[in-house]
């Protein structure tokens, strides 16, 4: 995780903002932001479950990624998420892994959580 980015505010990840560069510097509409974070957790959990990892919110500013045995890391944004997950697992997280695809194909989108 890039500590400097964390210190200086939003990580400015491309999934966080669209359309206008720089908007992530503005601190508006906290409710909407919280709602998105919850949805993001739900989405990520669908995939991370395959690896036995769980993701939870940390103070609405970062995420906490944990293994089943309790190894834990803070992650800043979605890109860091995968690098951190690979580090915790000691193996690659590949979206093109046929087993992962098979597992996800068996999941149907349910209610929001």
């Amino acid at each position, binding site marked *: 995780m890039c500590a400097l*980015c964390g210190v200086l505010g939003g990580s400015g990840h491309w*999934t966080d903002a669209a359309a206008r560069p720089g908007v*992530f510097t503005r601190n*508006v509409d906290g409710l909407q932001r919280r709602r*998105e974070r919850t949805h993001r957790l739900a989405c990520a959990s669908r995939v991370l479950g395959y690896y036995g990892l769980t993701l939870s919110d940390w103070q609405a500013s970062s995420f906490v990624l944990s293994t089943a045995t309790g190894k834990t890391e803070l992650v800043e944004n979605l890109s860091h998420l995968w690098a951190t997950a690979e580090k915790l697992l000691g193996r690659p997280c590949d*979206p*093109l892994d046929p087993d992962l695809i098979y597992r996800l194909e068996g*999941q*149907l989108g349910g209610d929001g959580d």
Partner: protein
Amino acid sequence: MTEPVFTPVNLITGFLGSGKTTLLQRLLADPALADTAVLINEFGEVGLDHHLLERIDDTMVLLPSGCLCCTIRGELSTAMRELHSRRERGDVPRFRRLVVESTGLADPFPILSTVQADPVLRHHFRLGNVITTVDAVNGLNQLARQVECTKQIAIADRLVLTKTDLAEPAVTDALVGRLSRLNPSAPLWRAAETPIDAAALLAHDMFATAGRSEAARTWFAAELAAAGTNDRSRHDETIQAFALAFDGAVDWTMFGLWLTMLLNRHGDRVLRVKGILNVADSETPVAIHGVQHLVHPPVHMAAWPDGDRRSRLVFIVDGLDRGLIERSLGAFLQAAPQARPAAFTPSLQPTL
């Protein structure tokens, strides 16, 4: 609140001896670029690039290291911050564009990532077009031997073919064919034959044409035409372009999760990904554009380019399986939890 003004940063890259500096000279002679600052880097001890450039004034900062790559990303960042700071203080003229010339050996990617990732720079600068020069005489050989050369071409928004007056027409044609497979949507100029249109080369970038649906239509046509041809020569059989289209609204978060996961693992082999998405809760499409590990800030387009409301993505990949990519994306999107009606629209809201 007034909109922040971002200074576009153009990168000129290209293999050693492919005519980057000559191109820069021609560009800077254009009065339209009078307010352009230039960062070049000195390669080796001689600093040839420096001496060849006619226009050297105090808006130019020489980078002392030979290579702009990862190791001196910090220096590029420092040079750009310094330039910005001097502009704000009034020590240098108020330049409105910055051109960075990279060394021929560099993988251009870290330069782009510096502009987008640096916590200070990203509030003052934005990426503009990447211009890659290709030497018509040696281009095919360089492509065959050097992986950086392929990356420089794949990353380009504009291609400039140099030395066509010295090359055999057949060689040039073969090279042009190769370039159009590696990067179908980048317009190609023949520098020796046509006058350089500085504005078209530097200014008409993805950001400036944001929301203009005809721009999307143009590049889609080019990418799709290339994706449809299968006459790959044995040299670049691992590199292929293909297009995916899918119905229904896309969950932005799930899509982001998928693409970040793909780029984290295979970014080196995703030379380009470009597309428009029909995003849930958004009336108009969102355009995305990624080059290797880097994804440009997504853009809300003003309107759909045509009557087709499907999401469309074009990939140029090196050695990745098209079928797996398609299946993987489909599996991720259908696994998305149903968002509540008031859920996030992928627009404008920061996540801090």
